[in-house]
């Protein structure tokens, strides 16, 4: 410190303001403790003079005070509670107009115009902070406390990202940790119950399968993975495998741990995806490393045990035999010809040789079947690049022996700055997926084993004479579970190999414009290899103690139908996009804009060779045995121009305008392209001064949102408008138009209904050609108008937050026939459908979360719910023959998928009751009725039950429930975390059919509960004996036409139709984090173990049918969801 300071006494020194320094410490302190700092200038104002003193040079100059600006710079770094920099924080000097924002490193600098002042720091998602600037302070580092809300989350939206707080559309998102909480094999299953607006139904859960999800019950959504939209064409092969080409499948088959976030675009926010976005969009983003981050290496895995949630148990031999006797009695045949009284007694005793009861449920299924998962990933980055690498493997055995599924995923996401402003990147994901089935004759190999449970007679043994060397020639050898082994009946291996490469380049200019390019190439190959062996079966002859493999007539038992097939499907999907983004802020006005052009196409080719193998030994296919070859091909192509503008004023008034000009190959050249605009606006009321002023901190966030958007749907055919069909099996999506239907021409040698059929003429096979129908040139996409009004609210500093939306998607131009132009049927063709009718899906959704800390407890609870239902609005010029026709069949402004059927009002109690009953219940004067049969309600009072007595009894079957809801809870206490997820649904119908309806269906057995509780006579041999009541009607084997099962005029009655509701504990997880002191010694950053249960409990109304509440197959013979209990760990290495 130089001598000049000696001029000043200590008091004077206090009046000196250290104003301008280029080091991080106050000069006052510099002067006293750190004299070595270079280039420290000290400016002192004494009286009206300013002295500038160069500490290093020891020079003081004197300048008149007016010559330098009077300001006081403050700098600092803003971090959050995790010590991460927070950018974009608004820093203001209270009661002045001075303000700034923090940069991407969290640094800020601001000049205070007065000697003292108060700095306010505010940022969405963080509690506001005020700091008084003390004298001599030049650096203020701030740590902001996060709001409990997630407003500061960056959410991926179409063509960019936005802060949750400023989003104006109905967008929900889910982060990796919420996804990973459910140990799902397929990603869709991990979404269930966690997001408002998502409706889910899991109808077939064979290993590897996902859950059918829809957004607001609009139909199958569009999946966009890392910015690339994929095909929406869904399909499964007749073997039950997914065709693997759709976005949904690609999503399902990603490594679950590689997903960073999922955004669901539900309203106009989806319109930016145009022609295919009408059902909403699922945006998936994979993980990336962070720049400047030290390397992370994580290992995680679990091992779990699976069991069926529910599956109906078949009757035992005594029940079966007695039931068969009752059926013979009820059908007026002689029961004793089937089983004598002595035989019945022996079966009921079950002790004599040959009178043993077999339980085929136990034979087909296994308890506690393993499922495991292991994953390793590494991520990190330098200043100029970042990376994420992962490899994972999931392995799921089926409850049925020798059936399994496994999948290995790799993901490599790289990004590097090659020169200033220029980044290039690649996202590479690869997948190897294998299904292994036993090669059961018939197509879908899962069908027969489940069918066996119901079809096998409990009186017959799977092995002749119970000798496991000899498969028994049972009444239907095809469903004898003894044959379901790789080495008996063969195998089916299905392999997917898929590689997806995205290459990206991005150039950031200095003036806010960013240019991006993306090229994506997806190659998916399916390889199918199936071999079904012939095998022998035997009948034991106790007289000669021999096992005979052929009948007395000489025909071989067992299966003599060999089958061999290999097929290949190759799918190439290409996508290219160029995009420009611009953003700029002028004071309180902030703008951003996106413009993009993109195009995509794919080709799907399929090649099949089928042979009839001469034996079970030769492993390859030979030309000499070939009998089928299929060469199939399809394509899709689309292109679109995208534009979007965002404007916000002071973070309060938000506006988004977007549009897309989109084209699809499906339509004739004149009607290919369409423009799809969208607009949405938001008002953050909580940012208004009046809210801030009155702000007692109660309402911390309040935003109103409204949106309107137009999208398209590539729908070609009307959706279930066949008025004679009562099943209402309705797919919200509708099916796509046939490609190339705008072209005239000829089909040849296909397998479709309209394909040219080949014929054998003069011994030669002649490939058939068929003229196609009229070219469809006047049909275009269906127009959708999506409206949404929503409110986002945060209360108590975000401890409570909520999001509520009311929405409608109106579709107009749904294809239908213009039937008032009646072209005679004799012309031989029908007029193509035109875009004529309309419907709407309307609903509400919402979620509310509450999170807080209480001592060592850190907890959160959340609830979400969705109601969405389709309503038919205006069909094309409806007409009705009479009032009943209108009542029964109208689709004018009425909820869709009303399930019509009969009310069962009681049972015939006795023969006298049948005799004296005045209503003709069966259209045969009640001749076919027995005690216990259903009495249907004669609604119109005409004394006869027929179609006119149908009334609404339920909702759609087989599709998404109209109401879905979920509850999520999480508690953390010290090192323990407990989380629960409930999911539930209401307003869906399940129709019991076939095995769950007809006794002895398919010449088989029936569920035990049906035997235990049905109408019957006390003595099956005595037609005069008394009747005993029960739940199910009296048995009549194979009489499926009976009015109990199929009332006159329809098949549905509210006995067999159940309006299912359920609430199930999807997930319960208890985790433990090893304490830091321990893992430090182990060299770990994190070590967590957990135990997790899936589908542990279900509260529902189908328990008595012993079915999972989410299945839709009427027979119940479908692979249900699993009750999975697993043990897992996550380790992060330092």
């Amino acid at each position, binding site marked *: 410190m130089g001598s000049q300071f000696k001029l000043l006494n200590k008091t004077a020194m206090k009046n000196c303001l250290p104003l301008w320094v280029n080091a991080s410490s106050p000069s006052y302190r510099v002067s006293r403790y750190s004299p070595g700092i270079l280039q420290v200038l000290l400016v002192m104002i004494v009286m009206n003079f300013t002295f500038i003193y160069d500490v290093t040079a020891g020079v003081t100059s004197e300048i008149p005070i007016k010559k330098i600006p009077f300001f006081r710079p403050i700098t600092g770094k803003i971090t959050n509670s995790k010590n991460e920099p927070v950018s974009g924080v608004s820093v203001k000097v209270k009661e002045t107009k001075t303000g700034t924002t923090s940069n991407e490193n969290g640094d800020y600098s601001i000049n205070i115009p007065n000697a003292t002042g108060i700095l306010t720091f505010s940022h969405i998602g963080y509690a506001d902070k005020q700091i008084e600037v003390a004298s001599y302070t030049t650096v203020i580092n701030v740590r902001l406390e996060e709001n409990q809300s997630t407003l500061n989350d960056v959410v991926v939206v179409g063509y960019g990202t936005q802060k949750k707080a400023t989003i104006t559309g109905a967008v929900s998102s889910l982060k990796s940790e919420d996804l990973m909480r459910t140990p799902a094999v397929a990603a869709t299953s991990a979404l269930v119950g966690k997001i408002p607006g998502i409706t889910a139904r899991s109808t077939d859960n064979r290993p590897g399968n996902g859950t059918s999800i829809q957004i607001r019950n609009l139909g199958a959504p569009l999946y966009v993975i890392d910015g690339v939209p994929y095909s929406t064409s869904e399909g499964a092969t007749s073997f039950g495998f997914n065709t693997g080409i759709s976005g949904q499948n690609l999503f399902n088959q990603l490594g679950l741990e590689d997903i960073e976030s999922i955004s669901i675009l539900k309203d106009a926010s989806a319109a930016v995806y145009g022609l295919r976005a009408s059902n909403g969009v699922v945006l998936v983003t994979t993980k990336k490393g962070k720049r400047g981050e030290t390397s992370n290496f994580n290992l995680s895995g679990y091992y779990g045990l699976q069991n069926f949630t529910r599956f109906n148990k078949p009757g035992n031999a005594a029940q079966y035999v007695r039931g068969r006797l009752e059926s013979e009695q009820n059908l007026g045949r002689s029961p004793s*010809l*089937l089983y004598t009284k002595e035989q019945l007694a022996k079966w009921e005793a079950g002790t004599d040789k040959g009178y043993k009861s077999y339980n085929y449920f136990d034979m087909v299924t296994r308890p506690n079947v393993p499922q495991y998962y292991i994953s390793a990933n590494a991520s990190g980055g330098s200043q100029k690049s970042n990376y994420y690498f992962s490899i994972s493997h999931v392995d799921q055995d089926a409850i049925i022996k020798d059936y399994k599924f496994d999948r290995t995923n790799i993901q490599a996401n790289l990004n590097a700055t090659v020169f200033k402003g220029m980044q290039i990147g690649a996202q590479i994901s690869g997948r190897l997926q294998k299904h292994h089935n036993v090669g059961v004759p018939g197509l879908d190999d899962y069908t027969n084993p489940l069918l066996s449970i119901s079809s096998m007679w409990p009186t017959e043994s799977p092995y002749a004479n119970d000798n496991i060397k000899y498969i028994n020639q049972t*009444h*239907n050898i095809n469903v004898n579970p003894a044959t379901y082994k790789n080495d008996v009946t063969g195998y089916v291996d299905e392999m997917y190999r898929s590689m997806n490469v995205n290459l990206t380049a991005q150039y950031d200019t200095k003036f806010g414009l960013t240019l991006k*390019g993306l*090229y994506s190439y997806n190659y998916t190959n399916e390889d199918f290899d199936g071999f079904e062996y012939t095998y022998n079966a035997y*009948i034991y002859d106790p007289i000669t103690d021999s096992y005979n493999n052929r*009948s*007395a*007539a000489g*025909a071989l038992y*067992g299966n*003599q*139908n060999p089958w061999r097939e290999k097929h290949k499907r190759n799918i190439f999907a*290409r996508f*290219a996009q160029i995009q420009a983004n611009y953003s700029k802020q002028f004071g309180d006005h902030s703008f951003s804009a996106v413009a993009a052009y993109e*195009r995509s*196409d794919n080709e799907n080719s399929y090649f099949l060779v089928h042979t009839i193998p001469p034996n079970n030994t030769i492993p390859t296919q030979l030309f000499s045995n070939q*009998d089928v070859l299929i060469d*199939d*091909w*399809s394509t899709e192509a689309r*292109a679109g121009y995208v534009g979007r503008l965002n404007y916000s004023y002071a973070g309060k008034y938000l506006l988004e305008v977007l549009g897309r000009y989109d*084209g*699809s*190959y499906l339509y004739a*050249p004149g009607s290919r392209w369409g423009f799809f605009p969208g607009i949405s606006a938001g008002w953050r009321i909580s940012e208004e001064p009046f809210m801030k002023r009155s702000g007692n901190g109660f309402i911390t966030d309040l935003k109103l949102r409204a949106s309107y958007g137009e999208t398209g749907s590539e729908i070609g055919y009307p959706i279930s408008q066949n008025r004679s069909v009562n099943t209402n099996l309705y797919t919200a999506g509708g099916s796509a138009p046939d*490609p*190339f239907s705008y072209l005239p*021409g000829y*089909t*040849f040698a*296909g397998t479709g*209904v309209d394909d*040219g*059929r*080949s*014929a*054998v*003429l*003069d*011994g030669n*096979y002649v490939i*058939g*050609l068929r*003229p196609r129908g009229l070219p469809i040139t006047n049909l275009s996409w269906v127009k959708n108008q999506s409206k949404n009004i929503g409110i986002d609210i945060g209360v108590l500093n975000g401890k409570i937050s909520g999001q509520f939306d009311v929405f409608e998607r109106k579709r107009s131009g749904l294809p239908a026939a213009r*039937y008032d*132009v009646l072209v*005679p*049927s*004799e*012309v*031989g063709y*029908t*007029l193509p459908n035109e875009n004529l009718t309309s419907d709407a899906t309307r609903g509400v959704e919402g979620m509310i979360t509450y999170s807080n800390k209480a001592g060592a407890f850190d907890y959160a609870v959340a609830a979400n719910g969705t109601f969405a239902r389709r309503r038919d609005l205006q069909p094309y010029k409806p007409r009705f023959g009479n009032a009943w026709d209108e009542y029964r069949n109208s689709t004018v402004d009425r909820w869709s998928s009303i399930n019509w059927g009969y009310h069962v009002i009681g049972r015939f109690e006795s023969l006298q009751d049948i005799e004296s009953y005045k209503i003709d219940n069966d*259209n045969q004067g009640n001749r076919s009725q027995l005690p216990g049969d259903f009495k249907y309600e004669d609604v119109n009072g005409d004394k006869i039950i027929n179609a006119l007595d149908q009334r609404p009894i339920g909702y759609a079957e087989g599709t998404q429930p109209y109401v879905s809801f979920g509850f999520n809870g999480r508690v953390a206490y010290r090192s323990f975390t407990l989380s629960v997820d409930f999911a539930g649904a209401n307003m869906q119908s399940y129709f019991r059919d076939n095995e769950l309806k007809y006794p002895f269906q*398919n*010449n088989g057995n029936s569920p035990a509960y049906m035997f235990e509780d049905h109408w019957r006579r006390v003595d099956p041999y005595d037609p005069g004996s008394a009747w005993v009541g029960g739940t199910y009607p009296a048995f009549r084997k*194979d*009489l499926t036409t009976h009015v109990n099962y199929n009332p006159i005029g329809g098949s549905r009655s509210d006995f067999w139709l159940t309006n299912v509701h359920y609430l199930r504990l999807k997930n319960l997880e208890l985790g433990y984090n090893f304490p830091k002191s321990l893992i430090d010694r182990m060299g770990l950053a994190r070590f967590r173990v957990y135990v997790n249960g899936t589908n542990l409990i279900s509260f529902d109304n189908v328990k008595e049918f012993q079915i999972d509440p989410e299945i839709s197959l009427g027979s119940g013979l479908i692979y249900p969801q699993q009750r999975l209990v697993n043990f897992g760990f996550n380790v992060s290495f330092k």
Partner: protein
Amino acid sequence: MILLSAASCRKDWLDRKPRNIITEGSTTWNDPVLILGVLADYYDRLPTDMGLVDIDHSSVDANQDRQAQWRNMADYDDAMWSGAGQDARNNYTSYPFDRWRIWNYGLIRDINLALENIEKYGTTLTATQKIQFSAELRFLRALDYFEMVKRMGGVPLITKQLLYDYSGEPASLQSPRAKESEIYDFIGSEMDAIKDQLGNSNAATTIASTTRANKYTALALKSRAMLYAGSLARYNNLMATPITTLGGEVGISASRAQDYYAKSLAASKEIINSGFYSLYKSNSNLGENFYEAVSKKSGNKEVILAWDYLSAKNKRHGFSYDNIARGIREDNLSSSNIAPSLNLVESYDYLDGSAGTLKTRTPDNTDYIYYTNTTDIFANKDARLYGTVIYPGAPFKGFTVQIQAGVLVWNAAANSYTTVEGTDLGSNYTDGKALTAASGPHRSILEVSNTGFYLRKYIDPGVNTSTRGIQSDMWWVRFRLGEVYLNASEAAFELSQTTDAMLYINALRERAGFAANSMKALTIEKIQNERRVELAFEDHRIWDLKRWRIADKVWNGSTSNPDAMVSALYPYRVIRPGDPARDGKYVFIKMVAPRIRAPRFFQLGNYYSSIDQVVLNNNPKIVRNPFH
């Protein structure tokens, strides 16, 4: 971005060229190979009530749904359904009025389009080619009209493509129904016009195509169509109240009967006398011979037109898989669906000319008749029985098809038999011998005969042809000489040329094992029975009963009418130790088939199928059929 711009070189990204459609019209109509492909498609789309395949397009076009349904064989009185899942076929309370309905103007349109396009585009075709293809197309069109008229009565006669111009005024496209007679006349005149234009036959070798129309195919269609028209003209007017409409859409004047019969007879005679065809007589086993007459493809000069299949080219069907006898099935599923009825079996006469009723009881009805073998009861029957059905103990594919329902155990104390039947097939009784045979029959088990009989006709004799993997390429015979003989016989009979009539019918009977000139006196009932036994399962019976106007009497919906109920014959092995005349022998019990729960009921409104409401809506000039 380079890739992107490279890709943008394509003219229009959205213009894709389909690889699974031929889009070029003029190429097609100048290439005889492709035109034959068009014909192949049309041949394969010809409708039939039965057939060996199921083609159900109801989901696409309600008026084309019944193109071929082999399962319909189970719906009348010649058989029942013994398979799974379709027990409604055994429980029809009545035939619905829309049964047999077709309105397949899709095929008519396609044929008219082809006829016009050959003229319009076929610039490089030779005149001969054009004539040949056009004649063949006209044959197909006439056959399609025949299929419509026999189900619906007169239908609009459309012989040109009807093009709608999107003007909103389609009235000009509306045509009323033609008279029933006009459609038959059209078929007759078309066949006259084209018969000499059709090739597909070689006069030098006297070999004609059996799968494409030739002169004699045209005549065979004419023979059948004119016979139908003649019998409609005659028998409809013999009804208490003839079924007619004012405009003649339904109902043919009785005065035209003779003319139609004469035309039919002339056409039949021309075929019979052509030298191209002869009754199949290549196998000295007359039962096998009759089976081969229908099923054998090579060296068979009886078949005139067939719907052919070829396994080597994957053109095949599962008819044998679905209908082979249970005990000899090669696959582990299906079999036995169509089970022939006792009604049919008993309609085959004994070779001595006596009625075919099977003798199961002693004349005084005090006891069973005891047979040493299950086949004995069928001894000396018309060989066509063997050739059509598999009866208990009959051989097939080198196997004996064992059919036994159970055993009758003598209970001396009660002086009666106790019936014991198995709960499963192929089971043995406590004596170690068969209880229920591998082929049943069984009262309640599915996919095993419920009647005691199996189908032989159309079941493929080839190894493993009853498996799903291999399947069968047995053909479906649309026309054969046997029918032409019967047509000739009936027409001659109706024209009172009784000698000729007996000549033709006796020729068929002689082939079936009867003595020469076995039928000495002819009645329409005998002709009716002869057609039933000769043409069983060849898609004739329903149409025959309709044109003779007896369907409502034979299938009158009465449970007490044995003709309306489908009957079964159950064989039992007798266990009666100490009585060598009976012990170990077989007896037979006749019964209504246990799974039959309703009589066949054909109402007057079934004579002509109802016209779909959509068709009526679309064209106000279409009048309804009676009773609807």
